[in-house]
């Protein structure tokens, strides 16, 4: 170790940031680690269900290629394929490494790692530690990084927030400016490379399943300093969350992975208690529409189906909720495999999900989009890398459950050597006191001082709430161009009103008001990227669904959206997707991949139950519907995607999430 004096700054102490910190410290280099909360309290703790890796210990013939194919297929072919493949290939080793670190993964009777099923796959591929896998993985990395902290390799700056990058005259990243959240002191931190690993931007939608630190603020700062932001419009809405006053709490997909069933009463407005509704009077709409994958269809599909059922007034009690039922599973097994999440439900709702079906509704959960990176996690700004949810790679148009934990660690593991490589080769620009640091520091000071002095009648928390409401209503499950345009206008209005907010805290020591004001400005910029990306993409793909353009349009939109900052707002352009390994084919989760090949030209596809409250997909699909789910037999990717239904009702009728007006 010893003789090296490279310094890498890492912003964010979740899974991706800690994974990178561990690797860099292990290689003998110094790390400055910045986090707005003690790293052990990062949002990664909220991941529940598990981590994917094709270890194939269940005799199901799983393989890393199958994992790769599921990932690309689930992502509706928008992901660049080489990094997705690399991730799937690294996944088993990542799981084994965590096993060696002492993560208490659940075991089989032989003492091997146990695996469960998750959405978008037919294989048991998800390793899990009870139902708090993210917490357990984060703690393992936290422990390893603490080891390097004791060894003097890692310096932690907890309760420090990155405000901006320091760029030199050639737009090379030379470090960052961070703010001490107690004293509000701003300080420049020179670094030979910077890795941003700050997670998702869920708070842009007001309430989401994300933690309160998930503002996307640091990423937005990078974007405003010239980093490209890719596929911003792809926002995953998780099918099963528990609506709350302060946030939407996640109910893990593992509940369905372990056999949980989603249903509503067949009879609209049925007021009987769920246990007194007999089996044949229940509508298991996912199982009936998607016999092959059932309750484990990918999240975008499950979310739209639940949304649609509620839109049609079929929700439980006529409201925005459906049952997620575990009551048929023995309670002791539930405790062992899902204990942690059942406790969360019990704690916040008051019902015991072992005996009463849970009531759930979709909630904003994850951003597939993020900072543009190359296959080595490098952004377009030299010296700036990104890893984890804050980068756009891997997941395409929709992320599969339990792929996020593995992508975070993978991203960190790839970013670390790439950052070291860059740092070794970059021309060093001298010391701490040099001009570029002072200039950026001055700029950030001026912004803070301006906000502190500013007086006006606008309330920053009200502006945040309005942004969240508009974004949730118009830029989530169902998107219309006129509403997207209106949302962008609203965002411009909010940006204007932002100039008249006043910091309502006269005590600046450890205040929450100034940091929030900085977040809000950055969130508004990123909200425009998300909204305009959605407006410009006139197709439906993965999580992005427009009833006016119900089909996937590979000819025009099999490409990555790139947003670049300009004074007038985001400038949108596109770049091709690397689809060199698996040719795009239509997604159809009503059948397994192999069965679909046998049913090459059915009249109606798989037998599909037409339920009373559920619109069947349109029957006027021209020509023979070609279902190809076999990677050897690829069909025309441009043919109509018959799995989607027309949904011509305006979103207000949906009484959509957060629509309490």
């Amino acid at each position, binding site marked *: 170790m010893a003789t090296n004096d490279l310094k890498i700054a890492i912003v964010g102490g979740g899974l991706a940031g800690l994974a990178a910190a561990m690797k860099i410290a292990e290689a003998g280099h110094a790390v400055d680690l910045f986090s707005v909360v003690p790293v052990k309290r990062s949002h990664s703790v909220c991941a529940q269900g598990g981590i994917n890796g094709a270890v194939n210990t269940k005799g199901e013939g799983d393989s890393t290629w199958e994992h790769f194919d599921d990932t690309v297929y689930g992502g509706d072919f928008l992901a660049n394929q080489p990094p997705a493949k690399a991730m799937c290939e690294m996944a088993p080793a990542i799981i*084994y490494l965590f096993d060696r670190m002492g993560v208490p993964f659940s075991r089989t009777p032989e003492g091997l790692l146990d695996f469960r099923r998750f959405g978008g796959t037919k294989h048991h591929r998800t390793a899990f530690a009870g139902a708090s896998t993210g917490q357990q993985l984060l703690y393992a990395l936290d422990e390893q990084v603490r080891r390097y902290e004791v060894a003097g390799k890692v310096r932690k700056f907890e309760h420090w927030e990155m405000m901006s990058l320091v760029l030199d005259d050639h737009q090379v990243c030379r470090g960052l400016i961070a703010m001490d959240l107690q004293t509000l002191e701003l300080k420049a931190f020179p670094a030979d490379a910077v890795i941003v690993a700050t997670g998702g931007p869920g708070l842009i939608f007001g309430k989401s399943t994300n933690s309160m630190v998930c503002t996307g603020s640091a990423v937005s700062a990078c974007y405003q300093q010239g980093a490209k932001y890719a596929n911003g419009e792809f926002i995953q809405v998780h099918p099963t969350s528990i609506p709350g006053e302060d*946030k939407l709490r996640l109910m893990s997909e593992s509940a369905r992975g372990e056999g949980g069933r989603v249903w509503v009463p067949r009879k609209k407005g049925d007021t009987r208690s769920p246990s007194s509704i007999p089996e044949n009077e229940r509508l298991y709409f996912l199982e009936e529409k998607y016999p092959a994958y059932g309750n484990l269809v990918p999240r975008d599909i499950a979310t739209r189906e639940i949304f649609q059922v509620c839109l049609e007034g079929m929700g439980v009690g006529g409201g925005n909720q459906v049952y997620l039922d575990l009551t048929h599973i023995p309670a002791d097994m539930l405790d062992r495999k899902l204990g942690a999440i059942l406790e969360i439900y019990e704690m916040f709702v008051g*019902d015991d999900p072992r005996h009463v079906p849970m009531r759930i509704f979709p909630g904003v959960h994850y951003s597939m989009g993020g900072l543009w990176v190359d296959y080595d996690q490098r952004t377009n700004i030299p010296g700036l890398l990104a890893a984890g949810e804050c980068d756009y790679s891997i997941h395409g148009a929709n992320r599969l459950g339990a792929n996020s934990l593995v992508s975070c660690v993978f991203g960190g593991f790839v970013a670390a050597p790439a950052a070291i490589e860059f740092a070794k080769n970059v021309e060093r620009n001298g010391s701490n006191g040099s001009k570029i640091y002072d200039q950026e520091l001055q700029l950030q000071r001026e912004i803070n001082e301006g906000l502190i002095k500013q007086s006006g009648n606008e309330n920053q*928390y009200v502006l945040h709430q309005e942004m969240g409401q508009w974004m949730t209503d118009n830029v989530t499950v169902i998107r219309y161009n006129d509403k997207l345009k209106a949302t962008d206008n609203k965002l411009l209005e909010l940006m204007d009103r932002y100039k008249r907010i006043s910091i309502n*805290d006269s005590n600046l020591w450890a205040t*929450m008001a100034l940091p929030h004001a900085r977040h809000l400005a950055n969130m508004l910029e990123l909200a425009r990227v998300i909204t305009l990306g959605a407006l410009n993409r006139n197709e439906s793909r993965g999580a992005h669904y427009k009833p006016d353009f119900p089909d996937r349009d590979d000819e025009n939109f099999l490409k990555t959206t790139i947003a670049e900052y300009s004074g007038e707002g985001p400038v949108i352009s596109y770049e091709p997707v690397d689809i060199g390994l698996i040719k795009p084919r239509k997604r159809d989760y009503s059948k397994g991949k192999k069965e679909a090949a046998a049913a090459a030209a059915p009249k109606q596809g798989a037998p599909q139950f037409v339920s009373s409250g559920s619109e069947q997909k349109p029957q006027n699909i021209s020509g023979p519907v070609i279902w190809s789910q076999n990677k050897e037999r690829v069909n025309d990717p441009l043919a109509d995607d018959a799995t989607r239904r027309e949904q011509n009702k305006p979103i207000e009728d949906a009484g959509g999430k957060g629509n309490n007006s």
Partner: protein
Amino acid sequence: MSAGHEPTSRAGRTPPKSVEIHIRRRANPDSSQYWEEFEVPYRPNLNIISCLMEIQKNPVTKAGTRTTPPVWQMNCLEQVCGICTMVVNGRARQSCSALIDNLEQPIKLEPMSKFPNVRDLVVDRSQMFDHLRRVHAWIDLDGTHDLGPGPRMDQDEVQERYAYSRCMTCGCCLEACPQYDGDNYIGPQAIAQVRLFNMHPSGKMNREDRLEGIMGDDGITNCGNAQNCVKACPMSIPLTKAIYEENRETVVHGLLGWLKH
């Protein structure tokens, strides 16, 4: 949110019109504490955090005086990050999972008393992380390169380790412990982490480093057996079992060390 999560299991009493909250405040570490009273409109399913958010938006006391917004910490809001811990009606707990419908009013919020008070409801718990460093709370990996899977393990053993591994370093056990007061006793959280790693087949190889960490003047023998910790733990971690097991380990370790001399 219009979704109808009625608190069915808590139904049966008329909901109040408003929620009265008293907050024990402090402007900065050098100033003294004082109480302020607030009132927020009642809605079903409120928790402490949503009330604090409401106050933050428009910080006016019950008497109508404009004041500074109370400061607190929050993150996951699912009782898994531990950051929002405060003393609610006399008991240390996570404020995100403290539901208004289950609390006596007026609700009293105070910062935890065993840690330096930064401002209002915020405390500095860095001492807990210092203790994790001291007790060697990690597995000494040979490296992060691919060496295949870890040791096989019995599911029962895994479940016991899982219980210890759920500790979110929130500090409820330390707040409840009559012995813990700053630097005189390392406290149950660190001891339970010693148990977590000393149970692991690879972790065992460095068990002595961990035992040394809990054997000093402020070590495990300071436990007064009040058993408050295990009752206070929001994750139901068997803290007293960990203390019992590690006490035994340290005694044996101490004895062996004495015999060697």
